[in-house]
């Protein structure tokens, strides 16, 4: 196991309106991994994400980044929010500038970088999300999928170490989902740790290295996705169901240990092994 980049220790958070956010939540996010946080709506996934870069502050308990307890001092928050880039669920509420370039430049400009450096970073970020040709388009003329990628670019331009995404696949049609998925894989391959919250079990199973399961504000399980098939009762216990691929795998009753992750792999396996 690689080292922890983020650690939560018994974190409590209750919203001002009285609703519970996190309740004695303890978990660890490993550096360089793809981690998926799973749970029903209201399980505390978004609240957890908002704690990772200091947008929310635990009322009890501790959050550690890079083995250092967060102090929530100004300088530290700036470093934290530079290192940990967050893409929210709804692109319309996080794209606030008129043009794509302007929006991507928002973060770097706040860092006080020179105009040249900002320009460079914006170009590279737009290239990373394959949107160079949209740089001067007004945001409202983009498709939903393109908007999502602009949000991602806006975060990449800050040069983060960790990428945090809330429900990245929500609202994308299947073609855009494939595109966005391969984008995430490229970014992960380039060395970023990626942490995302989702309620799409099939996607989490296909994509992640580690699954973190949340329920009622608690982190109730942390599972290496490769070993999931041995721990299926955890999923059913918290009402998350079983990934479709694994359901079919179970029905097939294969002797092998690790089931395939995607439907494509499953089909290949079925054909190769001559099920008839």
């Amino acid at each position, binding site marked *: 196991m690689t080292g922890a980049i983020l650690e939560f220790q018994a974190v409590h958070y209750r919203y001002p309106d009285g609703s519970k956010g996190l309740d004695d939540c303890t978990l660890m996010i490993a550096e360089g991994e793809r981690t998926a946080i799973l749970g029903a709506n209201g399980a505390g996934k978004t609240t957890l994400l908002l704690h990772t870069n200091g947008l929310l502050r635990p009322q009890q308990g501790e959050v550690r980044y890079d083995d250092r307890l967060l102090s929530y001092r100004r300088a530290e928050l700036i470093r934290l929010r530079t290192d940990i880039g967050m893409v929210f669920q709804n692109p319309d509420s996080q794209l606030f*500038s*008129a043009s794509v370039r302007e929006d991507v430049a928002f973060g770097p400009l706040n860092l006080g970088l020179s105009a040249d450096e900002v320009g460079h970073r914006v170009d590279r970020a737009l290239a990373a999300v394959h949107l160079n040709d949209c740089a001067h388009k007004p945001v*409202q003329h983009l498709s939903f999928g393109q908007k999502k990628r602009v949000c991602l670019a806006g975060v990449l331009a800050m040069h983060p170490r960790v990428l945090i995404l809330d429900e990245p696949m929500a609202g994308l049609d299947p073609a855009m989902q494939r595109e966005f998925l391969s984008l995430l894989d490229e970014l992960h391959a380039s060395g970023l740790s990626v942490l995302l919250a989702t309620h799409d079990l099939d996607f989490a199973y296909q994509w992640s290295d580690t699954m973190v399961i949340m329920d009622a504000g608690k982190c109730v399980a942390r599972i290496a996705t490769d070993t999931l098939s041995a721990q299926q009762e955890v999923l059913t216990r918290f009402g998350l169901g079983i990934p479709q691929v694994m359901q079919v795998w179970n029905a097939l009753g294969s002797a092998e240990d690790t089931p395939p992750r995607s439907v494509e792999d499953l089909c290949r396996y079925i054909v190769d092994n001559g099920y008839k």
Partner: protein
Amino acid sequence: MHIMEGFLPAGHAIGWILVSAPVVAYGVYSLGKKVKKHPEYRMLLGVAAAFTFILSALKIPSVSGSSSHPTGTGFGALLFGPTAMAPIGLVVLLFQALLLAHGGITTLGANVFSMAIVGPFVAYGVFRLARMVRLPFGLAIFLATCSANLMTYLTTSAQLALAFPDPAGGFVASFVKFAAIFAFTQLPLAIIEGLLSVLIFNALARF
């Protein structure tokens, strides 16, 4: 700047209600005509009221470091016209009284007068005037919203001074007194509101 519930003597409270009522009534009447022609305008008015309320609750980073909030009615007047702001302002002030305990019911008339009538009309008038003498757009916006905020606060001071004249110096002394005391928070706020409005319109122009 709200006058608090129960702060004005009964006579003044009723007087200001009588002053504001016809303006609000005219606003409702003229909006009603507009809504008949464009039914979707009804929705816009409701949404605009919510927006004005949210604006007034937004914390502004102010010079002193403490946070305070703008009136937003000058900005609203430039978007929707000053006549629309009287009914919208009435609703917003009622919501503020009932949901935030800012202002009140007995002082509703006085507050509507300063914030939903004087402010918007000053903003609109100054803006038109500034454009007529060919001042640049940004400067016109700044002057309009800044002076709307200032006039609102001076009106409130005058309303308080009328209600509580200084025994020695009378209305004038009392007005100077109220204006001076509230100047500490209101002057920086007026300038910030003006600057902010310029930023908003600049951003809007690019969309």
